[in-house]
C-alpha cells in the first residue's frame, strides 16, 4: 500500500515542475468523479481552474471548500434548499487567501444544512458516506470535507466548527482536523450559523499537512470585526517534533463519561504514547464540563434564530410559488427552504430569547458559558495542553440517530466545551474501534495553535494512524 504524499512534498514538486500540478488536479477531479456515487462528498465540482502553481506556500495544491464559504460566481448552498440556487457575488476571505497561496479549489464539499448536524444527514443534497464504511456517517457538519480527505480525493479541505464540526468528522473519518482559536481566521464570507462560536479551520491527513493550510488561512481581516489583530506564527516552522517536558492534562470529567470501550482503549494507548515521547501527563479537574451540552444548545440556536432571520424569500434564496400575501411569502418560503433540524433550532433559539424565558435560558447559558471558559483558564495555569476523546464512539450507522435530536446532539459532548471557551482544538487519528477510526482531541490555550500542531506532529512521527487509508480508496 502506497503512503500518501505530504503537502510539503506535493508543493515542492509543483514549484519544481508546474506541469505536475495540472496533472494532479486532473487526477483529483477523476477520483472525485469516481467516488461521488459512493460518498456524495461534494455538492458541486469546479473545473474552472486548471493550475495555480504560483510558487506560494500551497502552490498548485488541490483543495475543497466546505459549501459554507462564498466562492465568487459559483453556487454556495450551505447544504440547504434555501440557497440551492444562490451564486455568491464575492469570495470569502478564507477562499481568496488560499487561492493567493496557490491552492486550487476543485469544488464545494457537502455539509449538514447551515452547519447544523453531527452526521451530514441534514444536507438538502443528500447524506455523505464514511469512506471507512459507507453504511456509516462521516460525522458533521463538515462531513464532506472530512470524507474527501480520508478518501484521498484531495490532500486538504476547509471546514468550519461551531460545536465540533471539524473535530468530530475528522475523528470519525480518521483524518486530522483543527479548529483554531475563535478570531484566528476571518469569518468574512462564511455563512453564519452562531456568530460567537463559528470558526474556520481545515482538514488534512496530518498536523504537518494542516500547518501550511492554516497558516495561509489565518490572520487579521478588516472585513471581520471579530478577527484578532495578531501576527500569525510560522506554523510549519513550529513543528520540531519535540514535546519533551510538555505537560498534558487529562480532564477527569471527560474520562468519567460514557465512552465506547474500544475508543477508550485507543485513547489510553495514545496517551501512553505521549508519555513515551517525554510528555508529563496529569489529571485535571474541569467541574463545569457537563454543562456544555445544555449551554451550547441554548446559545447556538439563539444566535442561529437571529442569523437565519435574513432568509425571507425577498432579497435572495428560495421563494415559494404564488404567495398570496407577504406573510404567506415569508412563512412558506422559510418552511420550504429550511429542513427540519434547521427549523427546530430556529424555534428553539427564538423561544429561549423570548420575553419571559430570556433570563431563565439565554442569560443563564451565558453565565454557565463563563464557568466553562473559566475551567479552561484555570486548567491552562498548570498544563500546556489537554487531551480527551474527540467523540464518545466511532462512526454510527446512517439513519440510526437522525430522528432523535437529543441523541444526535450528545455526539458533540467532548467538542462543545472548547467551542464555548473559544480555545483551539484538533482531532488526530489515534487508532481504531473495529474497522472504524478513533480520534484523540488535543486542546490548547487561546492562540497556541503552534503548540497543538507540534504535539500532533510529534505523535504522528511516532505512530502511523494518520497514514492509514480506507480500503478501496488507497
Amino acid at each position, binding site marked *: 500500500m502506497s503512503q500518501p504524499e505530504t503537502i510539503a512534498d506535493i508543493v515542492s514538486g509543483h514549484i519544481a515542475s508546474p506541469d505536475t500540478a495540472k496533472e494532479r488536479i486532473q487526477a483529483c477531479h477523476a477520483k472525485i468523479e469516481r467516488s461521488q456515487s459512493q460518498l456524495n462528498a461534494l455538492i458541486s465540482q469546479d473545473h474552472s481552474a486548471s493550475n495555480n502553481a504560483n510558487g506560494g506556500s500551497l502552490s498548485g495544491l488541490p483543495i475543497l471548500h466546505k459549501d459554507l464559504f462564498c466562492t465568487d460566481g459559483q453556487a454556495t448552498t450551505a447544504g440547504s434548499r434555501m440557497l440551492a440556487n444562490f451564486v455568491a*457575488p464575492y469570495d470569502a476571505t478564507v477562499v481568496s487567501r488560499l487561492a493567493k497561496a496557490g491552492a486550487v479549489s476543485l469544488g464545494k464539499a457537502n455539509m449538514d444544512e447551515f452547519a447544523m448536524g453531527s452526521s451530514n444527514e441534514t444536507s438538502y443534497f443528500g447524506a455523505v458516506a464514511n469512506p471507512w464504511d459507507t453504511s456509516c456517517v462521516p460525522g458533521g457538519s463538515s462531513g464532506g470535507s472530512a470524507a474527501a480527505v480520508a478518501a484521498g480525493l484531495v490532500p486538504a479541505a476547509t471546514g468550519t466548527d461551531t460545536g465540533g464540526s471539524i473535530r468530530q468528522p475528522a475523528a470519525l473519518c480518521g483524518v486530522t482536523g483543527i479548529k483554531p482559536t475563535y478570531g484566528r481566521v476571518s469569518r468574512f464570507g462564511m455563512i453564519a450559523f452562531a456568530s460567537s462560536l463559528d470558526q474556520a479551520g481545515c482538514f488534512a491527513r496530518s498536523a504537518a499537512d494542516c500547518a501550511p493550510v492554516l497558516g495561509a488561512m489565518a490572520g487579521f481581516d*478588516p472585513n471581520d470585526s*471579530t478577527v484578532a489583530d495578531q501576527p500569525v506564527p510560522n506554523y510549519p516552522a513550529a513543528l520540531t517534533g519535540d514535546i519533551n517536558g510538555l505537560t498534558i492534562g487529562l480532564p477527569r470529567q471527560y474520562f468519567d463519561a460514557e465512552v465506547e470501550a474500544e475508543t477508550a482503549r485507543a485513547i489510553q494507548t495514545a496517551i501512553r504514547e505521549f508519555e513515551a515521547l517525554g510528555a508529563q501527563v496529569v489529571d485535571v479537574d474541569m467541574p*463545569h464540563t457537563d454543562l456544555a451540552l*445544555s449551554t451550547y444548545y441554548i446559545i447556538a440556536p439563539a444566535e442561529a434564530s437571529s442569523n437565519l432571520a435574513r432568509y425571507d424569500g425577498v432579497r435572495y434564496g428560495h421563494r415559494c410559488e404564488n404567495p398570496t400575501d407577504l406573510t404567506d*411569502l415569508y412563512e412558506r418560503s422559510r418552511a420550504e427552504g429550511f429542513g427540519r433540524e434547521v*427549523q427546530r433550532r430556529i424555534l428553539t433559539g427564538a423561544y429561549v430569547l423570548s420575553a419571559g424565558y430570556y433570563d431563565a435560558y439565554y442569560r443563564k447559558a451565558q453565565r454557565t458559558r463563563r464557568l466553562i471558559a473559566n475551567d479552561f483558564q484555570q486548567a491552562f495555569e498548570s498544563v500546556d495542553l489537554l487531551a480527551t476523546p474527540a467523540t464518545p464512539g466511532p462512526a454510527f450507522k446512517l439513519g440510526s440517530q437522525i430522528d432523535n435530536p437529543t441523541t444526535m*446532539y450528545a455526539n458533540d459532548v467532548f467538542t462543545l466545551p472548547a467551542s464555548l471557551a473559544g480555545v483551539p482544538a484538533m482531532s488526530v487519528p489515534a487508532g481504531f474501534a473495529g474497522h472504524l477510526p478513533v480520534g484523540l482531541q488535543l486542546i490548547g490555550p487561546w492562540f497556541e495553535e503552534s503548540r497543538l500542531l507540534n504535539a500532533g506532529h510529534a505523535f504522528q512521527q511516532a505512530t502511523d494512524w494518520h497514514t492509514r487509508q480506507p480500503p478501496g480508496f488507497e
Partner: protein
Amino acid sequence: MTLHNDDVRAIAALNRIRIEDRDVEATAVALSGIFGLFDALAQVDTTDVKPMAHPLDLVARLRPDRAEPVTQSGTYQTLAPDADDGLYRVPKVIG
C-alpha cells in the same frame, strides 16, 4: 419543560415558519425533548457570574465615519427571486 401545541404555533408564527397542523404535535415533542436538556442549568448557582456573550474581549473596530459610494446593488439584485428597476418585488401589502 414541556412545550405544547399552542407554544409551537406561536413561536413558529413569530419566526415566520409555516408548520402544518399535522406536524405541530411532533414538533412539540421534539422541542420538549430538547428543552429537557436545559433543566440541568437550573440547578447551577450562577450568582455573581458575569454573562459571557463572546469568547474574546474584543473592542469593536470602527471604520472612519464617511459615506462611501454604493456600487453593488445591481449585482446583489441579480440574486433576488423577483427584482425590477432597482426594487425588490413582493406581494401587495396595502390593498
